């Protein structure tokens, strides 16, 4: 197996580089599953206390679209209702990030060449990345299953819960293995792999929001659909793990085929030649960062427009529900809106979308740090472009892009939604609800700007801020977390739109705070050494 020569050394190197990020991510995921299950069980200690009101909650298509179907009408199933899908997505993201960072990123930044010239087989780097990512997935899902078992939950169901996460994670390892071979840049590979994950989510959401039929069956094409259909604490379909394993094996096999046919540093997707002279737009720092982000922005806009159409058309299904007072109360806690079911649905969806858009904005702002690390910032900053302008260009791009994204998705929902349901709020109210999330998004983008401006080494913490804000804001109210903790999440201050009040003061405070963080980052950036 000379193609795997050096695998052991590479694994040791990978472990050395990942010894913080992987264990802490795994711990976070285990905390998510076990912590939220424990909190829910405390609220609903026995099946009878829970079941009566919950049976129809879980029949709510809006929730089903987001989280997948609930697997049974008992306390155990309720305890993991949200975390099965949420965790499956996060496990898949972990697999994607870990695998990509050990393969395409290493190759693009030239370190793989250094390693590859040593006694290292052609397959070894990919194999090492796959092994590390797979271990991370199995650790997160295995420890979660053990933790749930430790809470005294049903053993078969706990095992099935682990299977659901592992299925999504392993499939994503396969998809990402192929993506990092096809694209020749880290960003390109990320676009493919995140795009596949997003498509899998949308497909699953559409499939799960109908009962039976062709559309429902299409859910079996989505790895996240598989995860949902394990139905832990219900049908406990543990055999679904075979689908995840199959996707892993298939993806890695396809990746190896590509790997054997391409050059080091290259991909399969063709690299075209460019124009000999720059166009007029490519002049200032803002022109440059916009040009570099064009492909990414296009991908987001198309994806969000499609997502908005799906979310909007689901509005029609929401109105079919009877609304018991219990359900109303639960949904209020969940969605933060006191209005009709349609309004609650929109309030919830707009926050979910805001989290995704914030992630996009953070990634754009963190490009400042990536440029610095690669030495590209130096080329610009040795020209009359001041540090402040270079920093401001990245912030402006991220703020502009998040605003555009929100307009696109909000616009799509506003166009489709009111037509799908008679009781839906008007187009203006729908768009307003989406736009009202922007201050929270900007605040998260600003936190990332502060980090990358002041201490680029800690810039990845911006992701942790987003994740904590999301989990706390999303699970806090139903998990009975202390109020001050929930208040730390920007998503907890979004007001109740559509239908309720616009939290104007909170929005103003968050916007001013965001401006302050951006300013602080800019000042720090102008005063420090450039790596």
């Amino acid at each position, binding site marked *: 197996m000379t193609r795997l020569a050096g695998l052991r050394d590479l694994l040791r190197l990978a472990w050395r580089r990942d010894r913080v990020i992987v264990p802490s991510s795994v711990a976070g995921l285990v905390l998510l599953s076990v912590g939220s299950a424990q909190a829910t069980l405390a609220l609903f200690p026995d099946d009878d206390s829970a079941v009566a009101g919950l049976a129809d909650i879980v029949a709510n298509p809006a929730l089903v679209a987001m989280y997948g179907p609930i697997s049974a009408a008992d306390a155990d199933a309720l305890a993991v209702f949200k975390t099965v899908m949420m965790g499956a997505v996060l496990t898949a993201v972990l697999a994607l990030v870990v695998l990509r960072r050990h393969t395409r990123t290493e190759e*693009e930044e030239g370190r793989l060449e250094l390693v590859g010239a040593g006694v290292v087989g052609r397959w070894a780097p990919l194999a090492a990345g796959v092994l590390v990512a797979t271990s991370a997935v199995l650790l997160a899902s295995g420890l979660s299953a053990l933790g749930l078992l430790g809470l005294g939950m049903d053993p078969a169901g706990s095992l099935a819960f682990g299977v659901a996460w592992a299925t999504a994670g392993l499939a994503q390892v396969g998809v990402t293995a192929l993506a990092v071979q096809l694209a*020749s*840049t880290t960003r390109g590979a990320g676009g493919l792999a995140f795009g596949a994950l997003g498509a899998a989510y949308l497909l699953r959401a559409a499939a799960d929001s109908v009962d039976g039929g062709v559309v429902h069956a299409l859910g079996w094409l989505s790895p996240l659909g598989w995860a949902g259909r394990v139905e832990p604490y219900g049908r406990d379909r543990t055999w679904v793990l075979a689908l995840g394993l199959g996707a892993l094996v298939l993806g890695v096999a396809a990746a190896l085929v590509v790997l054997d046919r391409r050059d080091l*540093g290259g991909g399969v997707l063709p*690299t*075209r*030649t*460019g*124009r*000999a*002279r*720059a*166009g007029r737009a*490519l*002049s*200032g*720092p803002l022109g*440059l960062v916009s*040009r*570099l982000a064009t*492909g990414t922005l296009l991908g987001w806009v198309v994806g969000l427009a499609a997502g908005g159409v799906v979310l909007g058309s689901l509005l029609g299904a929401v109105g079919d529900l009877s609304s018991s007072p219990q359900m109303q109360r639960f949904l209020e806690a969940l969605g933060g809106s006191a209005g009709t079911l349609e309004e609650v649905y929109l309030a919830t969806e707009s926050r979910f979308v805001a989290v995704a858009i914030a992630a996009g904005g953070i990634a754009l702002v963190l490009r400042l740090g990536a440029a610095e690390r*690669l*030495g*590209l910032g*130096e*080329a*610009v*900053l*040795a*020209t*009359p*472009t*001041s*540090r402040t302008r270079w920093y401001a260009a990245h912030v402006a791009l991220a703020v502009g892009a998040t605003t555009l994204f929100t307009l696109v998705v909000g616009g799509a929902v506003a166009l489709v939604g009111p037509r799908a349901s008679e009781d839906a709020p008007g187009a203006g109210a729908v768009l307003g609800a989406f736009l009202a999330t922007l201050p929270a998004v900007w605040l998260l983008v600003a936190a990332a700007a502060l980090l990358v401006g002041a201490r680029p080494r800690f810039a990845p913490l911006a992701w942790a801020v987003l994740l904590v804000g999301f989990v706390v804001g999303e699970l806090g109210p139903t998990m009975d977390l202390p109020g001050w903790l929930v208040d730390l999440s920007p998503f907890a201050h979004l007001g109740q739109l559509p239908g309720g009040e616009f939290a104007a003061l909170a929005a103003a405070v968050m916007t001013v705070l965001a401006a302050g963080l951006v300013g602080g980052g800019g000042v720090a950036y102008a*005063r*420090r*050494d*450039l790596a």
Partner: protein
Amino acid sequence: MTDAITIRGLRKTFGRTVALDGLDLTVREGEVHGFLGPNGAGKSTTIRALLGLLRVDAGTARVLGRDPWREATALHRDLAYVPGDVVLWPTLSGGETIDLLGRLRGGVDEERRRRLVARFELDETKKGKAYSKGNRQKVALVAALASRVPLLVLDEPTAGLDPLMEQVFQDELAALRAEGRTTLLSSHILSEVERACDRVSIVRAGVVVESGSLEHLRRLTRTRVQATVEDTPTRAEAAGWPGVADVALQDGRLSCTVDAEHLGGLVAELARRRVAGLTCQPPSLEELFLARYEGGSPVPAQARA
């Protein structure tokens, strides 16, 4: 003549690494100044401090009459920089990169740009990630050399260029000097500096250990003399002559080294002793640099006394 760059007592540490340890450097206006030193000597750190990219711990620097840290933006209007490790935007073509950098700097000399692209045989339509190291270097060089600025700061610009392209670079550098522009050229290759530079500073371990014109540096080295004389001195006699060292006597042939100052005296002495054959080996800069790189002195101890 005024000075384009003046650095006094520059100090910069990275954690426990002392990169610059009281570095002094003067670059005069209109000259090509060689900045020579082994890897890790502190050349790039000095240059990055000169550009205001690093904040120094102590010392002063003036570049074109400005403080590089506080007036970086204004200063950058008047200089072009080629980093030691050229990275390009993977999705921009070479031509786009040259135009972009030119625009950020406030314009390029179109005529010169065309000539440089042709002379360097650069394919402008390739994307950044498709260029080899040498071609990346060419993109950065074209962008810098085609600008209309008075000062060029080039950090090991020929690394990765083949000998033909290195010649093109030398020609272009000479053309810039003829126009009265100033260049700071860092390098660890002596021959490159020897061909292009008016004056040279040698840096080692964060300190400039020698600075001056090539002529001046040459005079710091010792000339090797071999002579056949009828009136052969003893070894001890010869070693006693002023400035003479490393004496060896074999079959009536005297071989020794002498410092520049005492070469005339030695030749006169040999003439008195009826010299029959004489070879003088001019001082090799290579020797000087190797000695300086290693931290030794090119002048043997006994001769200094």
